[in-house]
């Protein structure tokens, strides 16, 4: 794993190992917030930002505090605390210094704490033994990949509003199946690069 270049990880995390389409993380907010394009873009940006920062933060804490102290069984609880604290901090910071940005992104920030893609990215970082640069690359890539998926989905759902969908499939069921088709399309990138 240590040989893979950080840039390759960025590309792979966006296309071939998309955190939503191949690891199924962040489905809840994906389903809830993909109805409008503006919402999807806002959430996508917020997730990319938070994911990049928290995976790097968690990397530092895991490798310089938890492992040396031999308390890595507390990983889960520390990671989730770091994410929650970071989101809270960003919320206060944005509210104080950029009220305009706060109104655009503010409502998404609390949602992000329970977005499992964020915690998932941190856990993958531990499982796959990434170096510092690889972690940063993975955080950016996974965030961008998630944003790409939700923005594409918002566009598709707008179109679907005009289609005649059988009643039992309306709502979540058809969204799931369309996501499946999207995942199938993204599998086409699989030959390009891969991380495992």
């Amino acid at each position, binding site marked *: 794993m240590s040989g893979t270049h950080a840039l390759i990880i960025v590309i792979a995390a966006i296309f071939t190992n998309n955190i939503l*389409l*191949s*690891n*199924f*993380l*962040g*489905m*809840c907010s994906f*389903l809830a917030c993909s*109805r409008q394009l503006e919402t999807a873009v806002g959430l996508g940006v917020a997730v990319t930002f938070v994911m990049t920062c928290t995976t790097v933060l968690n990397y530092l804490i895991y490798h310089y505090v938890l492992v040396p102290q031999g308390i890595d*069984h*507390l*990983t*889960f*609880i520390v990671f*989730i*605390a770091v994410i*929650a604290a970071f989101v809270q901090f960003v919320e206060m910071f944005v509210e104080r210094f950029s009220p305009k940005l706060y109104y655009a992104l503010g409502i998404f920030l609390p949602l992000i704490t*329970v*977005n*499992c893609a964020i*915690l*998932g990215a941190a*856990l*993958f970082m531990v*499982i796959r033994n990434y170096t510092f640069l690889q972690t940063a690359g993975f955080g950016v890539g996974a965030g961008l990949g998630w944003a790409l998926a939700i923005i594409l989905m918002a566009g598709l*759902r707008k179109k*679907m*509003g005009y289609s005649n*969908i059988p*009643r*039992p*499939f*309306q*709502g*979540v*069921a*058809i*969204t*799931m*199946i369309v*996501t*499946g*088709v999207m*995942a*199938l399309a993204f*599998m086409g990138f699989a030959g390009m690069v891969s991380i495992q």
Partner: protein
Amino acid sequence: MGSNAPVACGVCEGKGLLTFKDGVWHDNPISIQILGICSALAVTNRLANALVMGGALVFVCAMSNLFVSFLRTVTPRRIRMIAEVAIIATFVIVFDQFLKAFYWEMSKQLGPYVGLIITNCIVMGRAEAFALQNRPVLSVVDGVANGLGYAAVLAVIGFIRELLGTGQVLGLTVLPPDWYTSNQVMILAPGAFFALGFVIAVSNMLKGPEPEENRP
């Protein structure tokens, strides 16, 4: 687990059975409330994985509901979310360590998804929506019921995907390869989305003709 329900019913003056039915069927966390989708998709490529994950959720949901309910009168409202997350994370760590100690192979297979139970909306949702308002015993019934409802849907999806994807059920060959060519897509990511989409559609059909409000 199911045999606990009648006992608890006596304790809660008949509300237990109702709570139980709601959790498993009427308000099923996955097919009706659409919560906890991530792990429902990720661990269902094999039926065995789905069953272990279901068991994990029954345990975590019941225990966290119990403790959130115990502490509901002494938890200040402002920090209740943090308290809930801490309680949930504790039981997830217990389960994760148990799996690592006794079933290392399974722990490898499930990967990060055991840890991700912490952010599983079902557990948090039940703590917030039920355990905060109800007494401990009833909360445990609710936790077990929601865990079982989740486990049941996972088992169905895991069964469909393993059967269509490999022709096997729990590792035993059911559809012999000479007349069923297994469809690899079903055990890969897209198959998960298709299977869950159809499961939700079928559950909508069974629910009857009431209109679905959330059109895309």
